[in-house]
């Protein structure tokens, strides 16, 4: 059951994305309401991360487009925040917690300007919101998994955006951190922000989110719990890949080029 909304904050139209020669997302059509906590769910390899990356412009789609605030990504970059997966960086990097959070302010600063007092205050506020205020000068290599995740979120808060996209922010994180982050996300949506989260665990998802996007190489459902999380839709999402789709993907991968790309 795919629910479409009027005046969506994010609109995805007929999006097809290939990754490494094979299609990972087929013809995704959805629109999302603002001010909600939205979860993207699906099994491994379902295309969840790819969807976020396509929205953020990090991978090029083979077809279709994405509209944010009814505009293109380039026009509204300053209103969007991205939290990548924790493993995507090397935490041995010589930086303090505050250093990383301040990176969230770089976008608005532009080239050649150095971050100043205003940026530092904003970063400290963000750290406060994730409960890491006292860790400002700690080296990131000394942090636990949960603390690293909080730092990443603080960085995105420092961007002061309206739409937040987070890739598996709850993965490998202790219970206390998970609860804390969830509380924070709820506060943010209450304040009118929209937060889209790729989540790995179906059980906790049921209680966390207002809106559910179910992916399995294609869009199975998009909508509130009642319409998107029925038993039938759950088995369509988690019940294994569509046989034909897998076969076609194999056929495509065997070719030396991607026939779906223009």
């Amino acid at each position, binding site marked *: 059951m795919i629910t479409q909304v009027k005046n969506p904050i994010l609109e995805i139209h*007929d999006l097809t994305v290939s990754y490494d020669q094979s299609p990972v997302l087929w013809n995704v059509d959805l629109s999302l309401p603002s001010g909600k906590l939205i979860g993207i769910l699906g099994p491994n390899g379902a295309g969840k991360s790819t969807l976020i990356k396509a929205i953020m412009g990090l991978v090029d789609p083979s077809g279709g487009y994405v509209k944010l605030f009814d505009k293109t990504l380039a026009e509204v970059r300053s209103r969007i925040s991205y939290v990548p997966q924790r493993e995507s960086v090397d935490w041995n990097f010589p930086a303090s917690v505050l250093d990383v959070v301040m990176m969230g302010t770089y976008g608005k600063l532009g080239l050649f300007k150095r971050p100043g007092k205003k940026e530092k205050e904003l970063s400290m506020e963000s750290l406060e919101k994730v409960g890491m205020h006292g860790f400002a000068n700690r080296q990131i290599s000394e942090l636990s998994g949960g603390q690293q995740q909080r730092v990443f979120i603080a960085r995105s808060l420092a961007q002061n955006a309206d739409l937040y996209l987070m890739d598996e922010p709850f993965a490998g994180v202790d219970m206390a951190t998970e609860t804390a982050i969830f509380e924070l996300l709820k506060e943010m949506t209450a304040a009118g922000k929209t937060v889209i989260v790729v989540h790995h665990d179906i059980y906790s998802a049921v209680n966390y989110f207002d809106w559910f996007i179910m992916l399995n190489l*294609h869009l199975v459902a998009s909508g509130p719990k009642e319409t998107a999380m029925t038993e039938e839709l759950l088995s369509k999402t988690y019940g294994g890949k569509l046989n034909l789709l897998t076969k076609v993907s194999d*056929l495509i991968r065997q070719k030396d*080029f991607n*026939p*779906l790309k223009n």
Partner: protein
Amino acid sequence: MEDFVYFFTFQDSSIAFVVIGIILLGVGSAYVGTYSFLDKKALLGDAISHAVLPGICVGFILAGEKNPLFIVSGAFISGALATFLSSWLNKSTRLSEDAIIASILSIFFGFGIVLLTIIQKSGNPEMAGLNQFIFGNAIAILESDVYIYGGLAIFIILCLTVFQKEFSLLVFNPDYGRAIGFPMGMIRVTFNVLLILSVVIGIQAIGVVLMAALLITPGAAARFWTDRLGVLVILAGTFSAISGVLGTYISFVIPQMPTGPWVVVFLSIIALISFLFAPKKGVLSRYLSRRIYLRKTHRDHLLKLLYKGIEANKPGLPIAEIHEAFPFQKTQTKQSIGNLSKDKFITQSQLVIELSSTGRSEAKRIVRLHRLWELYLNEYMNIAPDHVHDTAEKLEHLLSPEMEELLESRLNFPKLDPHQENIPRD
């Protein structure tokens, strides 16, 4: 011209030895290097080739002359030390692998340069031979050298061939090897020994800096032609041998040219040819595949167009109308019409094109695949009817008869597609 004949008919026995030497050296390095390449540790060979320099110098200092035994031993110990330090640094520090390799490479080389300049200043006349190690000069390979270094090369080649199973386990799946009881640690050490040995003998011909090419390039080039390990290694060796001989030839004809760079140039040319023209993996091959596919796609679209004409009660379509359906593709359309006529899928009378009977079933098949796929996208993936067309348009050319059967049975032999159009069957 006479140089060419003189060289290649081996009238001069010293030339024959040089050629044999360089072939053996090159093949040995290509063999070992290919495994390194598959192991994704290709640049380790680069580090080792720089790292043997201090060992060579120490060997020279101790022997007082260019004594192969001392030099090889020195180089070997130096290389082994570098390899050991690399893995130790990997385990004991948080430095990244590339930083470790680059550090070992430059530190050992720097130290080697120190020793080299000390030797140079000492005024030992034998020293001229040492410079050969940095830049390589195959022409200077003596008969005695060939026996020693050639012998070592043959040893390396034999080792790798006889123990192909063990070394491929090392490169592809060491954990599995360990699990089934192979002594992976020993195998790794043996491999490193072979790698260091091949570096030591290879730098004679090609020099320290360019040795990496002798290890990496043949394997990288051969990889584009085959997926089978046995063939891969032999092909790499062949490329290396060819480049070695050609490079030596240039050095022979223009005496002041060092051999090394020319061997690398020929190897790189072979590599570039492989990257561009190898069937299936080559850049050009992929490009051509795509062009051929796009042309087939266009022909299919033309057939479909004619079929849709029949559905709309127009048994044939005028050429002008066909061209109109494919704006900006005039040459392509002309080509497709030509090809389809040749294959007897269409007939042309005056300016109207009609489907032949074979053409009609082929067109039916494509239309059927298109509409089946549209139905599949719509029913199984909840994709809106107005979004299924583009994807189906691209995929209809790919779907095999087996896939067609699957689609039919999965969708239960449907009559209509999402646009309420008929799904044609014979």
